[in-house]
């Protein structure tokens, strides 16, 4: 008989823990306040462990940010080159290969600074929060975001499974594809 209130308390605690998933922030910092200092461009660190930080993971744990990222991904025409993850003019984003690193900070740098061979720099065009939302969504394309927050459906017919159903691809650093690889 005593188990029932305990189970109830446990359920309430569980439900409360899930609330962050739906948290919404509307007044983010304005466009133009972007700090390049926070971004780490390498995945190699002396001692073998990455420096402290990583607060940007919270965007991946939040369904609202994730969904906004998905919306912005087509609004800002990322689909134009990367398609819905399969790539085209730009490299695919749904596989395990990352030319410039697959950590959130690396993807942030790719968007803000741009990359050689065609990736434009969006510095000063997109507020910081929206870049992080895009980063979270881009990582969900290769199944790296938590399943409980990743988008589970598309508004349109889609040839690939939803971001939530995508199997996780462990990120692997990769050189630029060679000419023969590109022909494949």
């Amino acid at each position, binding site marked *: 008989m005593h188990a029932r209130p305990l189970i109830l308390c446990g359920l309430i605690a569980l439900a409360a823990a899930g609330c962050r998933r739906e948290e919404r922030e*509307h007044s983010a*910092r*304005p466009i133009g306040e972007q700090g390049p200092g926070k971004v780490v461009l390498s995945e190699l660190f002396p001692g073998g462990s990455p420096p402290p930080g990583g607060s940007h993971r919270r965007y991946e744990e939040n369904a609202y940010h994730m969904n906004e990222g998905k919306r912005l991904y087509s609004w800002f025409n990322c689909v134009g080159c990367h398609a819905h993850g399969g790539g085209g003019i730009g490299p695919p984003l749904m596989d395990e290969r990352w030319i410039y690193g697959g950590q959130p900070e690396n993807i942030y740098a790719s968007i803000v600074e741009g990359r050689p061979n065609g990736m434009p720099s969006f510095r000063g065009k997109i507020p910081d929060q*929206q870049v992080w939302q895009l980063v979270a969504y881009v990582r969900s394309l290769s199944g790296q975001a938590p399943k409980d927050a990743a988008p589970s459906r598309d508004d349109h017919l889609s040839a690939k499974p939803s971001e939530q159903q995508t199997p996780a691809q462990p990120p692997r650093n990769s050189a630029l594809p060679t000419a023969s690889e590109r022909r494949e």
Partner: protein
Amino acid sequence: MTAPVGPFAQSALHVAGPQAAHIERLWWLMFGVSAAVYALVMAALLIAILRRRRAAVEPEPRPDPAREQGLGRVVWAATGLTALTLFLLIAASYLTDKGLDALAHDEEVSIEVTGQQWWWKVRYHGAPESRGFDTANEIHIPVGATVKLTLKSTDVIHSLWVPALHGKQDLIPGQDNVLYLRADRPGIYRGQCAEFCGFQHAKMALEVVAESREDFARWREAQLAPAPQPADAVQARGMAVFLSGPCVMCHRIAGTDAGGVTGPDLTHVASRRTLAAGEIPNNRGHLAAWIADPQGIKPGNHMPASNLDPADVRALVAYLESLR
């Protein structure tokens, strides 16, 4: 010039078109019937309350069969009258629906209205299509002309409701709904999203400007033209700020490199009466405030704040104000 917005710009009882007139007639019929029923019920209740109560000690008199029969007849008559009234209302509602659909489908103007969180994208179709153009939150129509509205949505279900012209019609993602309407007298009629669509649903309004055919043709020609070039150094700086800043990610100005399509088309933004979907009047102060802090005016909307230099904001506003 069109008439200024009156206090009844958004009223189903101050109609400006044939379809809204049908709805208004039905409204008055329903009101009359409901008021009469209400008065009768209240009167019966009052009689029951005020009738002198029999003393508690007095024994209940034996029911009089003739009186009982009379009461039974009254109940039957009242039931019959109620059923008849309801059938009358059904018939009136059916005839109103038929009346709404009776407007001939030979449209003079064809407009596509796309609901988005939380504003209205308005596209005028032209013949040929290169004579079409985009605007936002303001629909101009010629008085006396049948107008076809094709209703779409890109995100969630919205509903277009301009009470002075027509009833509500939903805008549904993945489906085109069609609404034919006509305005019979010039004026500015306010409309509103009538289906809860998220955080800023209450601030998703639009205006329908009904004007003479000549005024409409003039407006249409003006909207078709590309944006004017900056006239002075301040406006030129504003244009540079627009093109090099974050604005181009979402907004379009025809005649420049700005080609974003996710936000409202700004080619002739200064010709519009309101900003932010009817939320604030379109003037210098409100425009600057909107650019500086859109989240303060409409929290949750998709325009982010930008960290522009005050002089840049002034130049930007001067440039946008020149886009007539």
